[in-house]
């Protein structure tokens, strides 16, 4: 039965496809191939989610070696949900990537670009699917290394320095996680996450376990770009090729956040992380600072891509904020926002991709009057922007709703006020762009640009409409997030 192998196929298919892709000729074949692979993965992810939702967690033992001796893939509802998000974004981004890659990247590199893309995709899926701590490190590095290469393909030379900075920070982060894994292994003698969890209960809080916890926290926060470890992110997203920034913005930090849930809830356990070591006390102020400062910084950015990157930092802050509330409601809010933000930010970066193909710039001044020359793209940006602010009928509102309710549940009024206040900052930075789009005359050399290519535009609208859809019909994300939070808190 092939059905039993879905957990491994999810990761292995793109992994095998990646090198094959590099052998393909310089036609549009690599694109077709990579897109097809992504859609297959998406289909598998949906099947997995359905199975997990119905029958409970799936585990897959490599070579039939029973865990904890063999390597085990373990997919519960949290993982399955994140797998769906990652593969959905990847398949839409890849579908849209054709015209973007043609303009952004030299023809002889197309096949290599898609190879790197598939590898990055593999890495992200692997982090989520695996139940083995060391495997997490390997997949983390697979995704990071390929994303360094992808970012460096941006045509501005600053993409190179951005990628270099990301490489240094990313490697240090991953190595910190490796140290954490080593310390845990030295105490428990196992690498299997579920096994780790049980043995942790037995040994309690040794000093080296505390040290491991600290290394994990810092390492993951680096990958997550949590304030003050966020410095690599804005440039990396701003100068990467548009399809790469779309994909990374929508998935990479989300997977890092998933890792955070896994480590703090599954491995260390709720009591250890939040009651004994007071993780909330560290995460909460950092999240608040992240939200406030990056929302302010976003207002003063010279270009829209950088603006979106800073706004991402703020949104990550909301997610860790939910996590740091150390309650079920907070965790649900965090997971819902993880889902919603993936599509909101993905959609917005796609809008920027549309504009980049036509105008070659996303600086404010160059976007003037695009509401007239590119009406569909601009309309999509407005809807995405409203979702970012959290206007009702968009998915951003749902996130805010649950987040504020979670703070009210704790009677933290001041925090609720901070959350709504920072949404107002989002109004300011979104509206700066909207005014440029609609109430300025286009530049002379941009006055006759055409609307973005139909395929790209269609993919953008799929993303944007999904934010509207999930803002109205909230059943799917809310049910999944609730189930996921329950699974994590078990």
């Amino acid at each position, binding site marked *: 039965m092939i059905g039993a192998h879905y957990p491994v196929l999810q990761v292995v298919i793109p992994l095998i496809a990646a090198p094959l892709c590099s052998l393909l000729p310089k036609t549009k074949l690599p694109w077709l191939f990579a897109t097809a692979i992504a859609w297959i993965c998406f289909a598998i992810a949906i099947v997995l989610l359905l199975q997990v939702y119905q029958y409970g967690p799936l585990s897959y033992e490599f070579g039939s070696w029973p865990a904890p001796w063999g390597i085990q893939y373990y997919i519960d509802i949290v993982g399955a949900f994140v797998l769906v998000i990652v593969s959905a974004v990847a398949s839409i981004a890849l579908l849209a990537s054709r015209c973007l890659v043609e303009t952004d990247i030299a023809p002889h590199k197309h096949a290599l670009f898609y190879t790197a893309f598939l590898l990055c995709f593999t890495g992200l899926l692997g982090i989520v699917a695996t139940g083995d701590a060391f495997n997490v490190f390997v997949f983390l590095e697979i995704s990071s290394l390929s994303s360094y290469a992808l970012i460096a393909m941006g045509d501005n030379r600053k993409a190179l320095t951005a990628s270099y900075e990301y490489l240094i920070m990313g490697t240090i982060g991953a190595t910190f996680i490796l140290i954490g894994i080593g310390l845990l292994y030295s105490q428990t003698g196992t690498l299997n996450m579920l096994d780790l969890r049980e043995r942790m209960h037995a040994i309690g809080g040794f000093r080296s376990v505390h040290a491991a916890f600290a290394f994990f926290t810092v390492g993951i926060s680096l990958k997550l770009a949590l304030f003050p470890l966020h410095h690599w992110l804005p440039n990396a997203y701003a100068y990467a090729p548009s399809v790469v920034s779309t994909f990374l913005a929508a998935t990479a930090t989300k997977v890092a956040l998933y890792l955070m849930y896994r480590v703090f809830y599954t491995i260390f356990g709720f009591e250890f992380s939040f009651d004994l070591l007071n993780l909330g006390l560290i995460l909460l102020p950092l999240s608040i600072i992240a939200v406030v400062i990056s929302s302010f910084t976003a207002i003063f950015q010279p270009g829209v891509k950088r603006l979106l990157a800073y706004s991402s930092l703020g949104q990550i802050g909301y997610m860790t904020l939910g996590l740091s509330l150390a309650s079920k409601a907070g965790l649900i809010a965090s997971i819902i926002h993880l889902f919603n933000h993936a599509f909101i930010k993905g959609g917005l970066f796609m809008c920027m991709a549309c504009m980049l193909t036509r105008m070659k710039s996303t600086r404010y001044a160059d976007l003037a009057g695009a509401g007239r020359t590119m009406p569909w793209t601009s309309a999509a940006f407005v809807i995405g922007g*409203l979702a970012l*602010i*959290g*206007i*009702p*009928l968009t998915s951003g509102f*749902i996130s*805010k*709703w*649950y987040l*504020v*309710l979670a703070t*009210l*549940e704790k009677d933290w009024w001041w925090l*609720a*006020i901070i959350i*709504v*206040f920072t*949404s*107002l900052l989002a*109004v300011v930075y979104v*509206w700066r762009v909207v*005014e440029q789009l*609609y*109430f300025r005359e286009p530049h002379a050399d941009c006055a006759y640009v055409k609307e973005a290519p139909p395929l790209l535009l269609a993919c953008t609208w799929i993303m944007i409409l999904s934010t509207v859809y999930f803002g*109205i*019909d*909230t*059943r799917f994300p*809310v049910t999944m997030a609730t189930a996921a939070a329950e699974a994590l808190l078990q």
Partner: protein
Amino acid sequence: MMDLNQSIWASMLVPLVGAVLIYIFKSQKRIIEIVFVGTALCLLGVTVSIVKLGDAVFHQTITLFEFIDSVPFAFHLEPLGILYACVASGLWLVTTIYAIGYMNANKEKHLARFYICFCIAMLAVMGIAYAANLLTLFIFYEVLTLSTYPLVAHKGTDTAKAGARVYLGILLSTSIGFLLIAILWTWSATGTLDFTPGGILEDKLSNELLVLLFALYAFGIGKAALMPFHRWLPSAMVAPTPVSALLHAVAVVKAGVFCVLKVTVYVFGIDLLQTSDANIPIVWVATATMLLASLVAIQQDNFKARLAYSTISQLAYIVLGAALATTTSIIGSSMHLATHAVGKITLFFCAGAIYTATKKTLVSELNGLGRTMPFTFTAYTIAAVSIIGLPPLVGSWSKWFLIDGAVSADQLIIAVAFLISTVLNIIYLVPIATNGFLLKPDDGNTKINEAPFAVVMPLCVTAVLCFVMFFFMPVIYEFLS
């Protein structure tokens, strides 16, 4: 005959279909004008059919779907909502005709965008009027804010954009910053957001917290323009006059006070407000707004700005009536919602007509214009007297009930404040009419120079309405009580 379900659907769909049709025919000016008026006619028809359904269907809830946390997206009918829907859809019809005349006479651009946003704003108004719970109300409230933003910024000049920015900034920040928090608080305190006769908050919160919550609602509904969150109203006056007329005499501001009324009656409940005294701070804020805005209005030379401050003051009447929380004052407020709408829209129409005919925008330039624009100035006089509140014009009814409400709430100071405000109304409204008729024109020109027919006709209609409605007010009184 449509049933409840169909008619509520229809009142949302009619403006939507209108907007889509206008988008489809955006290059043919004639067709979109016909569609625009046709939409308004249909909407009025739908509203009339809803009125005919009678009180048998009140408080029957129509649920579309579950939204968040089992709060549904739902609609219902109740007297206040029907009154608001009637006022809005009736005056919309008049405004469409006026808007077409005005936009053509002043050669404004981007007509399709303008009419589409107008239709969507009406959709939002209908949603607000029939919303069955706070969340549905909030959603349409935000839709109304966003759909009117392009209307305010319509001219695209720097002043228009700056005005629109203030408009959007204040309305969004009060609604997200206060109203949303108030709604979430209500939800976490009571577990329901439905509008229920008698309120939902009884025994849920202590008196001090009720004061805070009521203040959050009153200020959070920024469209009610309580000071100090009133700045958006004068800034939004950069919009073309039909926008100011409909949106700032009827749809937007009335949406604000309507929300306040609805929250007072169906969330807090009159009894709860009276026993807890949660309303007292807002009573004083509203009184202060009422008097201060009138004083500011006296100093304004720009005609539309003067009307804008007058609106702020009149809105404070309604909020004050709601905050007094007696049955009489609530009825007075609801009536004032209708009577002020008719009066103020006439005044705005007049300002637009004068601008169309002469390009004059300052009060000090209007001397003697009554001779050249007799219809406009007669209509102005009628509406001004109605707003001041003298019989036999419709404004007298609502003012009477408001003062009566203040007396019955043992707030004699408030009753006196109403009287002082009336005097102030006279000071800032009447001189325009007297100067217009009695003084000599500055340029000596006495030839009749009215604005185009499509502009003048609507303002005459609304002026006549001011008079006719006087006799129908008892019917509305019956309906409301």
